[in-house]
């Protein structure tokens, strides 16, 4: 009861703060303190978003495709990499520095190179998403595999399980919370990755749409695109959370 109450009051508090913020913003624009062509009011953004949905939708689908392919490939690659790095010390020694270095190269530099190499299609965007998503999934999963409770692996060993069976039947399920933490980070970043990829060169997608809107000084259209990007990112995060609850029914604390 008390926990439920706390959760409700917390949600209420968040809603209040957000409401106040947007209310202030609305008020500033409506009263003319900030001209609407500089910063459109929240109500205006919402209206534009609804009105231009049919125009934005095809771009959104392209971006979603890049995100989908990107997360799926990053997930598969990260899982395999984490398992290999956990099992083979040599793989870990070779790959770990590479993984870290890959995160130090600025995306803003890499994305145009991808476009140069792979054209204006979807592939360079997918690559950017992979680059953004791979690292958090791989590193988190590896940490989960490494930190499996020794009692649990010992019990498997006593039951006569070999190294591979322990890896897949004990360590992998025990590492699932870590894996999902990585996946949550990846889901949040994936949209940004795809949009950056499109922003820097492309023919379709939300990033392209934003560039065009910006060049036409259609600030309300830019904000409408931002609204959709945020909404999709949040939906992706909720989707991961839903999957986590589905796959890990034993886990009590699957929350945001």
């Amino acid at each position, binding site marked *: 009861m008390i926990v439920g109450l706390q959760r409700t009051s917390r949600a209420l508090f968040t809603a209040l703060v957000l409401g106040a913020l947007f209310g202030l913003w609305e008020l500033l624009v409506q009263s003319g303190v900030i001209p609407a062509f500089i910063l459109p009011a929240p109500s205006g953004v919402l209206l534009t978003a609804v009105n231009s949905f049919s125009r934005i939708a095809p771009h959104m689908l392209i971006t979603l495709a890049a995100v989908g392919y990107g997360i799926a490939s990053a997930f598969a690659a990260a899982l395999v990499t984490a398992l290999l790095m956990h099992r083979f010390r040599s793989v870990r020694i070779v790959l770990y520095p590479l993984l870290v270095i890959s995160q130090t190269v600025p995306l803003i530099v890499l994305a145009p190179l991808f476009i140069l190499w792979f054209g204006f299609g979807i592939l360079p965007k997918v690559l950017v998403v992979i680059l953004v998503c791979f690292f958090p999934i791989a590193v988190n999963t590896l940490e989960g595999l490494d930190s499996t409770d020794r*009692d*649990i692996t010992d019990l498997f060993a*006593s039951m006569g399980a070999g190294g591979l069976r322990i890896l897949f039947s004990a360590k992998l*399920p025990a590492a699932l919370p870590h894996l999902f933490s990585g996946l949550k980070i990846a889901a949040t970043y994936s949209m940004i990755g795809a949009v950056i990829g499109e922003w820097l060169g492309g023919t379709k997608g939300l990033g392209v749409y934003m560039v065009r809107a910006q060049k036409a000084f259609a600030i309300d259209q830019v904000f409408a695109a931002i609204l959709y990007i945020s909404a999709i990112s949040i939906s992706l995060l909720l989707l991961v959370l839903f999957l986590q609850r589905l796959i890990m029914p*034993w886990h009590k604390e699957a929350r945001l």
Partner: protein
Amino acid sequence: MEERIIFSAERIVKYYQNGETGVPVLSNISLKLKEREFVCILGPSGCGKSTLLRVLSSLEKADSGTIALDGNEITGPGPDRMLIFQEQDQLFHWLSTRSNIHLALGKTGTQSEQEREKQTTALLRQFGLQEAGDKFPHQLSGGMKQRAAIARSLAAGPRILFLDEPFSSLDAMTREHLQIFLLDLWKRRNLTLLFVTHDITEAALLSDRIIIMNAEGKLVKEVENTLSRPRDRDGTDLHKFTAVLRQELSHNPGL
């Protein structure tokens, strides 16, 4: 009647590396377990009792010394010797109670899946866990978790159970209940038990024989427990015996 030695450890030595020098955890430990015997190791916390059990189950390597089952030296872990921990999170938390037990049945060749299911159900019933079968470990009480852990280890078909203070994190009432439960289990099954504890009354109540271990990881004294069973936890005999044990413990500096 001459009892058969089922398990023996000879001159087990183990050091923990501490910088350049090794700190001895187990100093030259030898012990023998007779078939169906209930032996308690009594010693202070942090005296290496847990390490000893891990070495005896071959989960950790000793620096020297050997262990043997039925007189044959063994080097690797196996379902013949199962270990029960103190911690209540030793169950596989991603599996239901039923699946925990079912998993431990292993793939021992000839058993059909139907037989395995039947065996799992029988174990659940025997351990009073019928209602808990489909629950996850975090939904069980502490006592149920420890019972489920014992049920699971029995599913693996061990001949020897090593128990590492299995009841010490439970409340007093549950602990007393599980002590009786374990005695009953031992009476009905062909099991040899090595039970580590720092609770003198527990050792006196349960064991056939008590081995006292000191803080330097040495077995310093063996006491036969000749109290007749069933034992009365509040009886004068048991109180006299615990007084003797307490005396023994106080004779050994470093405890």
